[in-house]
């Protein structure tokens, strides 16, 4: 996939932050197939590192339950950084009560697993 060294700015960059390798890979691939430039990260820390190197996604799709740095921890780091605070965040989760969890981190939206492809594309499209 992409590397942090040559991250293009612009409105077709999407961050996928998900610890499950299969899910991360599948999400990245379908979005790439639709022409998005996808930056994938296995946890919040990796995502934060990409952002701090200058990546500017139009939206961050993020799972909440992750090792090393989970979604809540990532969000609090993000909003503390004025350069990153404005990037829209969409929570992806298989748990019940995802709407409440999304609200708890102040997310802009949420996608419940299993994610419907059309819903995924329509959601990401909204942030282009």
């Amino acid at each position: 996939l992409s590397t942090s060294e040559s991250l293009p700015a612009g409105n077709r960059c999407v961050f996928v932050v998900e610890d499950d390798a299969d899910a991360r890979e599948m999400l990245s691939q379908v979005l790439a197939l639709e022409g998005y430039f996808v930056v994938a990260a296995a946890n919040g820390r990796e995502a934060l590192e990409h952002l701090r190197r200058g990546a500017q996604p139009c939206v961050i799709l993020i799972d909440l339950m992750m090792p090393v740095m989970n979604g809540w921890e990532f969000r609090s780091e993000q909003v503390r950084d004025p350069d990153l605070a404005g990037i829209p965040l969409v929570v992806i989760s298989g748990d019940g009560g995802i709407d409440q969890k999304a609200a708890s981190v102040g997310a802009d939206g949420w996608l419940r697993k299993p994610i419907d492809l059309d819903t995924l594309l329509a959601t990401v499209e909204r942030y282009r």
Partner: protein
Amino acid sequence: VKNDVRELEQRVQEAEQRLRKLFEASLEGFGVHEGGLILDVNDTMTTLFGYARAELIGRGVLELCAPEDRDLIAAHIAAGDDRPYEVRAVRKDGSTFPGLVRGRSFDYGGRTLRVTAIQDLTEARRALAAMRAVEQRLQTVVANAPIVLFAIDAAGEYLVCEGRALAALGIDGQSLVGRNAADVWRGDERILANVRRCLDGEEFTSSGPLRDAWLETHFVSMRDGDGKVAGAIGVAVDMTERRRAEEERAQLLAQEQAARAAAEQAQRRSSLLAAASRELAATLEYEDTLRVVPRAAVPAMADWCVFDVVEEDGTVRRVGVVHADPAKAALAAELARFVPDPAAPEGVPRVLRSGRPATYGGLDDAALQPDGDGWPPIGTRRPEHLSLVRALGLRSYMCVPVVARGRTLGALTFVSATDPARYGADELALGEELAHRAALAVDSARLYRAAQEAIRARDEFLSIASHELRTPVGSLQLAVQSLLRGVRTGSIAHTPRGFITNALETMERQSKRLVQLVESLLDVSRISAERLELDLADVDLAAVAREVADQHAGEAVRAGCTLEVHAPAAAVGRWDRARLEQVVSNLLSNALKYGAGKPVRVSVDLAGATARLEVRDHGIGIPAPRQARIFERFERAVSSAHYGGLGLGLYIVRRVLNALGGSVRVASEPGAGATFVVELPCAGPPAGAVASSPGPP
């Protein structure tokens, strides 16, 4: 001569007058009769019979008495009998009176005269009758009074012994008369001493037993004209009935007092226990329940009360110290910091060890001093602990175990700050009853807490299971929808082949993941229902380890781990191959998950008849307090906010190994990785342990 005669006559007259006066002055009636005819009477005679003197003179004496007595009078006269006799005299008016008659005949110049004196016996008779009546009454009284009346002379000899009370004593009073008290009461020192005292002149009352009776005897000395003691008089009253009644009354009173005390005690017990039950029933929360328990005992049963609880992991925690005196609340709170010393031979540690109550009394400040090698009779010898106990006050105490379902959950200590003997059998029974109720409440609160915990774990599991199932389904769905979209729009022709392959491989992996998840859930269900079936055969653990490691090669790559297998020699045992693969797979998945980015090593060796499998990672590790719990259902060493998974892997590992007769343990330091060590007897599960296993023939 004439003068002499005259003088003589005069003298005779004077003598006669004197005689006459004498005759008249007599209180008796006098009469002189001759041949039964009255010649002269004195005035008394006239008064007695109601006749004038003239009427009497010349009258026959027999007319003056009742006809039936006339023969008697005639016989006395005829015989010249001068012995007195009684007649019924008849007055002029016909009335009669008893008369005592005495006559004497005499010769008077050749004539036989008879002088008769008569005395009216009416008054004498009346007096005699009256006296007899008095005597009769006295005799009746003495004979019938419930007393014994006795008199003893100065020598100690009985003069009198009378009274109805004698019958009850079985004593014949008459037989005592003439006998000496010293002989009669030989051997009865009490009675003999009383007789001596009274003969010494003392007046007193003595009471005591005699035969079956109880006598109260008043002793009075008899004295002669010179005031010298001449004997003793005693009046004994039979107090047997009264004493028995008094005893009965005292007994009844004692019974009534005992019954009242028992009723009051029962009332106190039941109201105290009812209040305690009410308070204990008011909450199911564990900590609240622990706080209520010592409060229930103060002040009714103790000046202060301590509750030490044995937690489920065996540690003793002092959960509450309650003091009746609000001024000592701060000191009491201070005491809660001190836990009894388990090594102490007495007090709380002893009760917790033995599960039996103990009471201690007669304690003073000296008994509560730290004393070198010795132990004060409470559960500590720390000087600061002891001085705190002295400040709170302790003279006696009892400690009762809090036992439910055969397990000692703690100990309740009831303390009296002032009474050195406060805790007897009744208090102990009450303390044990209170402890019993406390035990039920604490046990219920623990069960409630466990149930709450189980519900929380189940809810969390459902949430995690949902997450775990949705993740592979999500990948599967995206892959399917993506391919479907390509087919429907025709864009599939331009889709890179790599993407299609990748999508299909993803679909295959997700399907397998789903099957594995479902299998795990079914395993849990089977284990819970004790229906884990084992298909026993000769299995090489080294081969299984190598194969499972191969299957996880892709996963290891994705996790950034190098996976090393060290299984140089075969380790064959009688096990279930599929279950063994599951064990290795679960351990390896965990190692890759929690040790991502670091090397993971699997090794197998054989030590005698035991095969050993080690899976070592260098990941986040497991804190010591959580190490025991990770093999429980739905447990994980870390928050589910960071790591997914059902939390079932290690639970299944442990249960499968237990079924195979083996074991699993973990050695870990946070941040330094974890090593799981499996040990399996090559002989397989012990006979009979796999009842449900069909097994090969």
